[in-house]
C-alpha cells in the first residue's frame, strides 16, 4: 500500500541556517505518527512543507499522492490542518464557525455531531473568544476535521495546557480511529500516549525512529535497581533482585527497578546529536 506521506532527502535552510537536513520519512494509512523534537529542531518546518505552507529547497515529498508545493484545491479537500495557537474567530459561536468551515468542503462531516465528538456540545452556542484555552483547541481540531480529511496535521496541539486538559485532549485524539495523523510535539508523554510510531528530530535530522516503547533500544536497555543502601545498573534486574532478596532474607528496603523512560532515551538521543 502506498504511504500517505513519503519524504526522501528533504532539505530546507533559512539563510545560513540548515533547518532540515536530508530527512526521510514514511507514514502509512491510519497511522498516528509523532514527530518529536526540541524547539527549533525542524519539526514545524518539516510539517509546514508537508502542509503546503512552506517551500522546500530539495528532496522528494509526496502527500496523498501529490507534491504539496503544487497541489491545489482538490488536495486541500483531503487534508485537515490544526496550526499552532491562533486567536481568530473570537466573535462567532462554536456552531457558527464549524458550520461555516463545512461550506468549504465537498463532503463535510455533520457539524453538530462533530461538535459533540470534540466534547463541546455544551458550549456550542458560546462565542469562541469566551472559551478556555483547551476548549479553543478543540474548536481548532473540529475545524481541522470538518472536511472529513484522510490526513490530519496536529502541530503542538497541547502546548500551554494544564495536565488534566492534556489528558482529556488525548482521549479526543485517541477516539479518531482511522484518520492518519501527523502530530508534532515536544512532550514525550504525549508521543508515548498517542503515537503508533515516533521519529525524533534534532538539528534538522531524524536521530531515531520506531515504536515509542522500543525507541532507541529502550526496552532492552539497562535497568537501574536501587535500594536503601545502594544501586546498580544491570541487564538482568530480576537476578539482582533475587540476590538482594536472599541477602536481606525477605523484603528489600526501598526497592526500585527503573527502566529508562522515553524522556531519558530522548534526552540521550538529542544530546548525542549535538
Amino acid at each position: 500500500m502506498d504511504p500517505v506521506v513519503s519524504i526522501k532527502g528533504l532539505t530546507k535552510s533559512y539563510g545560513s541556517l540548515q533547518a532540515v537536513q536530508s530527512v526521510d520519512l514514511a507514514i502509512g494509512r491510519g497511522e498516528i505518527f509523532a514527530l518529536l523534537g526540541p524547539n527549533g529542531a525542524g519539526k514545524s518546518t518539516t510539517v509546514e512543507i508537508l502542509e503546503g505552507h512552506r517551500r522546500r529547497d530539495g528532496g522528494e515529498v509526496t502527500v496523498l499522492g501529490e507534491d504539496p508545493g503544487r497541489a491545489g484545491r482538490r488536495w486541500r479537500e483531503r487534508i485537515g490542518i490544526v496550526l499552532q495557537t491562533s486567536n481568530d474567530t473570537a466573535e462567532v459561536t462554536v456552531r457558527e464557525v464549524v458550520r461555516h468551515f463545512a461550506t468549504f468542503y465537498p463532503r463535510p462531516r455533520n457539524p453538530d455531531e462533530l461538535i459533540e465528538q470534540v466534547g463541546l456540545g455544551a458550549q456550542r452556542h458560546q462565542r469562541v473568544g469566551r472559551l478556555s484555552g483547551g476548549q479553543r483547541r478543540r474548536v481548532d481540531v473540529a475545524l481541522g476535521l470538518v472536511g472529513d480529511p484522510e490526513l490530519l496535521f496536529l502541530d503542538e496541539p497541547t502546548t500551554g495546557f494544564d495536565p488534566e486538559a492534556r489528558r482529556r485532549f488525548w482521549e479526543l485524539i485517541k477516539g479518531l480511529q482511522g484518520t492518519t495523523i501527523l502530530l508534532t510535539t515536544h512532550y514525550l508523554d504525549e508521543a508515548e500516549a498517542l503515537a503508533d510510531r515516533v521519529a525524533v528530530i534534532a538539528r534538522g535530522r531524524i536521530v531515531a525512529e520506531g515504536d515509542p516503547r522500543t525507541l532507541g533500544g529502550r526496552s532492552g536497555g539497562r535497568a537501574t535497581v536501587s535500594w536503601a543502601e545502594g544501586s546498580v545498573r544491570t541487564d538482568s534486574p530480576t537476578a539482582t533482585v533475587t540476590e538482594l532478596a536472599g541477602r536481606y532474607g525477605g523484603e528489600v528496603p526501598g526497592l526500585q527497578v527503573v527502566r529508562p523512560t522515553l524522556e531519558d532515551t530522548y534526552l540521550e538521543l538529542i544530546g548525542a546529536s549535538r
Partner: protein
Amino acid sequence: MTVALARAGFELKVFFRERDQVVFTFSLPIVLLVLFGSIFTGEYPGTGVTVAEVYTAGMIGAAVLAVSLQNLGISIAVEREEGALKRLSGTPLPKYAYFAGKVGSVLVMALCEIALLLAVAVLLYDIDLPRGTAWLTFAWVVFLGLTSGCLLGIAASSLAGSAKSAGAVITLPFLVLQFISGVFIPFTELPGWLTDVAAIFPLKWMCQGLRAVFLGDGGLVLQPTGSYELAKTALVLGAWVIGGLVLCLMTFRWKSRRDG
C-alpha cells in the same frame, strides 16, 4: 459562488458582533456631516446649491472609502496576525471567494452607511434625493469607488508591518486624501496644485461624481472646468480598479512577515 456568499455572510456576522466597532464606523461620517453642516451653512450665491449638499456628496465619498479601503486595510492586517488567513489558506477555500466575501460584506456595510447619511441629510438639511438618471450615476460612482477601495484596502493590508501599526499606517494617507479631495474643505477653496495631486487618487473623482448627483446642473458653475467630467471620472476610477487588482495579486500574503 455559494462559498463567496457564505464568506460575505460570515464576515458581516463577525463585523456586526463587535458592537463598538459598528457604532463608531457608522457614526463617524454622520457626526462629521452634522458638524460641518452646522458650522458651514447657507448657499453658494446665485447657484441654489447649499453647503450641506456639497458636504453630503463629500461624506458619502469618504464613507465609501472608509468602509472599503480603511476598514479592509486594517481588518485584514489583524486577520493575518491572528492566524485567520493562514488557517483559511490550509482549507480548499479559493482566494477569489475570500476576496469576493470581503467585497460583498463591504458592499452591505456601504449601503447601510449611505442610507444613514441620506436620512440625516434629508431630515436635517433638507437635501433633495437624486432623481431619474442621477440614481444611475450614483450607483456606478459608488460601485467603482467601492471596488477600487476594496482592492486597495486588501493591498494596503500588506503594507503595515503588524496589525498594531496598520491603523496608523492607513489612517494618515486616508486623512490627507480627505482634506485634498474636497471632503472636509470645500473643493472651491483648495489651491490648484493640491487638486492636481488629489486628481491622481480615486476620492476626488468619487466626490465630484457624487456632486453631479446631489448638486445637479445648478452646481456646474462651481466646477473649475464647468463640468462634472463624468466620463473622465469613470475612466480614473476604472483604472484604479484595475491597478488595485494588480497590486492585490502582487502583494497579497496569507501569512504575517514574522511567519515567513
